[in-house]
């Protein structure tokens, strides 16, 4: 006699969350995984740099200027006899911190403004978008330089200006993504229920435009790093003696014929960071089914 089993095995189809699915897709992209690993390595190094760095990164030593890479100084030394390995490890900290905060600001203000404009629509939207277009028409570097000329180079000025200008570009993208959801039933229902604008934007619209926003964040971050290191290179970013890749390249590039390594290592560090962000963002966009190739800059 067989025991009566009341429950035949019902297959529990656990629907995977979208993020798990995205992660699964992403793991299949080799370039994405390479990018992500390099990016993680960069972040870990940036956080731990003060403890990993073998030498004091500001210590100058006139006897060992422009020494080639060897077992003692892995990356060689620079024009002031400072250890380039320690400086390269430290050189991304300020850039990464400033641009991450800038990106956060850009995403928060650009995202909220974009969703609100898309939701409100009408004349307000039309006129404010004109201003957004006008703001986008301004070469970013020029305005940064103008503002720096006035206020001097402080981290918070850079964060605020970078965040503001890059946020304007975010508005455009997020508004476009929002417009698709505004006429949908769940938004109309929320409106009918009498939910406040703020609730609709944060509870109904945000979850839907979140992927577009995340991809946008990664892209903005890469561009912002490019902008920040360019500013540093020109001498308007990080204040010496704080090490920074852009500044290190500017300091040593005049001697590139006798000490190419002094330019090579910071340039490699900066380029790998920016490329790894791009690769990761590309793979992520593909994994969640967004086509980024068509997005203008």
């Amino acid at each position: 006699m067989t025991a009566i089993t009341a429950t035949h095995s019902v297959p529990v189809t656990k629907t995977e969350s979208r993020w798990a699915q995205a992660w699964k897709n992403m793991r299949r992209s080799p370039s994405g995984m390479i990018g992500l690993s390099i990016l993680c390595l960069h972040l870990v190094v940036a956080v731990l740099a003060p403890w990993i760095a073998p030498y004091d990164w500001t210590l100058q030593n006139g006897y060992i200027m422009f020494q080639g890479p060897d077992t003692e100084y892995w990356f060689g030394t620079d024009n002031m006899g400072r250890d380039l390995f320690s400086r390269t490890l430290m050189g991304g900290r300020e850039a990464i911190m400033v641009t991450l905060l800038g990106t956060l600001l850009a995403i928060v203000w650009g995202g909220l403004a974009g969703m609100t404009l898309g939701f409100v629509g009408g004349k307000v939207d039309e006129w404010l978008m004109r201003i957004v277009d006008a703001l986008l028409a301004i070469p970013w570097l020029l305005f940064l330089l103008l503002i720096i000329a006035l206020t001097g180079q402080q981290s918070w000025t850079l964060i605020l200006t970078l965040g503001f200008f890059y946020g304007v570009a975010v508005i455009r993208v997020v508004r476009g993504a929002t417009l698709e959801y505004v006429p949908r039933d769940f938004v109309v229902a929320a409106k009918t229920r009498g939910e406040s604008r703020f609730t609709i934007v944060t509870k109904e619209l945000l979850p839907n435009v979140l992927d577009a926003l995340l991809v946008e964040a990664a892209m903005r971050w890469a561009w912002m790093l490019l902008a920040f290191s360019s500013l540093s290179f020109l001498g308007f970013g990080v204040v010496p003696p704080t090490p920074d890749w852009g500044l290190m390249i500017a300091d040593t590039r005049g001697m590139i014929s006798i000490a190419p390594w002094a330019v090579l290592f910071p340039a490699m560090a900066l380029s790998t960071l920016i490329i790894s962000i791009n690769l990761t963002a590309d793979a992520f966009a593909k994994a969640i089914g967004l086509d980024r190739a068509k997005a203008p800059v």
Partner: protein
Amino acid sequence: MLKLILQRLGLAVFTLFTVCVLVFGVTEALPGDVCTAFLGRDAQGTRLENCRQQRNLDQPALQRFADWGTGVLQGDLGTSLKRDKSINDLVATRMRNTAVLGFGAAMIGIPLAIILGVMAALRRDKPADMMISGTSIFAMTIPEFVTATVLIFIFSIQLQWFPAVTTVRHNAPIADLIPNIILPMITLALVMMAHILRMIRSAMIDVMASDFVQMARLKGVPYWHIVFLHALPSAMLPAINIIALTIAWLLGGVVIIEQVFNYPGIGTLMIRAIYDRDLPLVQAIALILAAVYVLCNLLADLSSLALNPRLRTAR
């Protein structure tokens, strides 16, 4: 049609006005003024008074904005603080040099980008495409000053083909710029190419998969005929706006590339003006570059209107 053209023109004028307001407004809104920024630590007592008087800073802001604006409209950009000369004179030859640089780079970069973009699209995901697309991503993501430094290392130091730094004065005749201009031009063209190429590639892939190309193929139209006479013109349409955007985006890049090569253009002048805290000069150059940008965009808009009949009938 006329209405659309007028609309685009209106938008361009509006953008320029916004730029003027911003350039002026930023200076007003932030702490300090033109004189305190310029004088720095010496900004006190009679020197500050004199400077402010000379610059009419005792007038209300609106009045000064109106004066500055009418000056700009009449083509008078004001006077430099540091050099005590008319900005128009300072800017003229350097504008010419930058224009030569940018134009040259565009002449090399745009055709090459189109050819390579089409090639990459036709060989999608094959080794040729991987190489072209991969290189373009590198050229796009690596900062201009790194690219420029690498090129200097290869072509001026190792091979010694071109000079690394420009030593020509800004008012030298154009012919004198020739050996010096080549490396900055290549750098600029490289960055420009990467952006346009990506756009052309993705547009071409879309168009080649479309029905009318399929139709032409089935009718037996020769392959290269389809590619260059049917597909490319439609792929170019979205690319025109990107080309304009890229040129504008490059205006920032030009500043950096000029600085790396010490090229006597408007970018190096702007950087020097910032080191000197010469705000009127900085404002003027920012305005000029923004105007170039707006003009590029306007031209792109108008040419896509001319090329795309669909845009003309809409609305």
